[in-house]
């Protein structure tokens, strides 16, 4: 007994040490990103390169907004991420309600198909999807990109909401139906108000997944007018060799929206994740 508690105490010390190392490993890249974004070019390159910015400046941020279409990229990412989120919430809610509460032939097959669809990676689909998008003349449009993003966000949202809707007690809905509520009425008045945490998680995933998406955005968009943040940033490498200052400023700003939302929704998000969710 005593030896167990002694081992536990020494494990606590091992844990504290490892924790410190992991914090350094996790946070140094962020430090470097922010430090670089605050430096003058003289401190970024060459013999005078520094680890800590000696004369912090916001010049890189100013350059980013004055000399690059970054603000346009931000706008496009926002339009596309918000559009995808709204569409997946609506489609996901309707589909999930049907799968969770209604009886019809093919229910299990559809549920299975949904999960399968969600797991098929975009790397297998982007080549033929490119042909689909060209035929439909949706290349280089916001709608086109939103449509392709629905291919991963709708199945996921539907699946997650389906599980949640099933956990809403049946009796509540029965009472509403007996009181003369229609099906859709009970969905809106009974189920949705009880599912707010799940809706928040779903919205979070739909938004961040579309904000962070790169492959489809890179393949289906060529024009600056529609280009999103993730593809826009990779172009900075080619466009200008000595561009790391503004690049890190842009990286920091582009990471902020998903980061802030993550900090707000943290607890729910982790719960949603453990259902088997997103991104590796």
């Amino acid at each position, binding site marked *: *007994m005593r*030896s167990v508690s002694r081992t536990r105490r020494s494990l606590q010390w091992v844990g504290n040490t*490892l924790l410190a190392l*992991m*914090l350094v490993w*996790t946070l140094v*890249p*962020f430090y*470097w990103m922010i430090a*670089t974004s605050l430096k003058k070019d003289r401190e970024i*390159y060459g013999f005078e390169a520094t*680890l800590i910015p000696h004369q912090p400046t916001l010049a890189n941020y100013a350059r980013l907004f004055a000399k690059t279409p970054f603000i346009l990229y931000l706008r496009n990412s926002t339009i596309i991420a918000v559009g995808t989120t709204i569409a997946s919430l609506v*489609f996901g809610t*309707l*589909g999930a309600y*049907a799968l969770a509460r*209604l*009886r*019809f032939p093919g229910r*299990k097959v*559809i549920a299975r*198909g949904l999960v*399968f*669809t969600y*797991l098929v*990676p*975009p*790397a297998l*689909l982007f*080549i*033929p*999807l*490119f042909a689909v998008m060209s035929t439909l003349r949706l290349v280089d449009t916001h709608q086109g990109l939103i449509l392709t993003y*629905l291919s991963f966000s*709708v*199945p996921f949202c*539907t699946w997650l909401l*389906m599980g949640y809707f099933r956990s809403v007690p*049946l009796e509540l*809905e029965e009472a509403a*139906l*007996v009181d003369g509520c229609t099906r859709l009425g009970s969905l809106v008045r009974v189920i949705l108000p009880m599912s707010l945490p799940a809706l928040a998680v779903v919205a979070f995933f739909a938004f961040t997944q579309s*904000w962070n998406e*790169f*492959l489809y955005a890179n393949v289906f968009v060529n024009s600056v007018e529609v280009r999103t943040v*993730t593809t826009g*940033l*990779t172009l900075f*490498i080619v466009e200008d060799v000595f561009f790391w200052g503004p690049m*890190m400023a842009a*990286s920091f700003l582009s990471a902020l929206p*998903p*980061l802030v939302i993550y*900090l707000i929704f943290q607890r729910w998000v*982790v*719960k949603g*994740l453990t259902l*088997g969710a997103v*991104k*590796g």
Partner: protein
Amino acid sequence: MAIRAHDAVAGRDGIATVGSAQARPGRASLALRRERQLAYALLTPTLLVILFLVAYPFCAAIALSLQDKMVGSPGRWVGLANYLELFRDEVFLRTAWNSVVYTVVAVALKFVLGLTMALILDQERRFNNVFRTLLFVPWAVPVIIVALNWRWIFDDLSGFLNNFLITFHLSRDIISWLSDPSLAMGCVIAVVVWAGTPFYSMTFLAGLQAIPRELYEAAEIDGASIVQQFVYVTVPRLRTIFLTTVMLSTIWTATNLQFVFVLTRGGPASRTEIFPHLAYTTALGARRLGMGAAVSLVFFPVLAVLILLLTRRMLRPTDD
């Protein structure tokens, strides 16, 4: 069918019947038909998305891989010629080997680090929730930005790593992290692990916290050591979470081209080329759509097994 419907009337989960129709089967079946129509109506958008954006493109990918189609010109059917060419191609064979190494090493490291991180965060400590939030932050950052940031860290002349090593006299020469053939793959994997570990620790930590403390207390009274408690209490309880997490992460790790795209473009000399990136450069760089589709599909059988297993697993708690 009608009998089954009637059974459902009696069944507890027969909300289909709440509408009143218990007395007359004629009305019950009308209600059922209505319900069926409503279900299909509600599912229409979702089904359209699945059919047109996943099922159709997937079949089209198989068809494409059997043609010699180039961008902008019609293809001819060539049977398995694309696949046969791949297996004679040295770059592809190297890519196949790289993809396996890359995926296995990255997933293994993420697993070990993720489990360590979860065990540490499960210990009692002040400010643990702050530490947890900080350690999970890489998960919330777009992968492209992670990759760009690390490319700058690895930069030959001014990056953080060389800067740091030289400032503190740990190295005298500049190290070309991403263009040295023996270092490049290691660097790419390090970045993948950095970005992917939080996902593992999140799911593992949730699993750890769901284990009742009494189990540990009971084991301790029985004289189990810390290691024995880990092996006989913790591991069995986490087994399903381990499996699900590893399978999901394997699919995502193996098919993510963003790290390679930003860090190395597959170089130096194809040392870091992996199949999703090769499919991308073949289809859009060399404009060989048919061949690109073939590259992306070669590994599908392996992924398909994982996807099928996961599909069953992800539906289990609700559908059984």
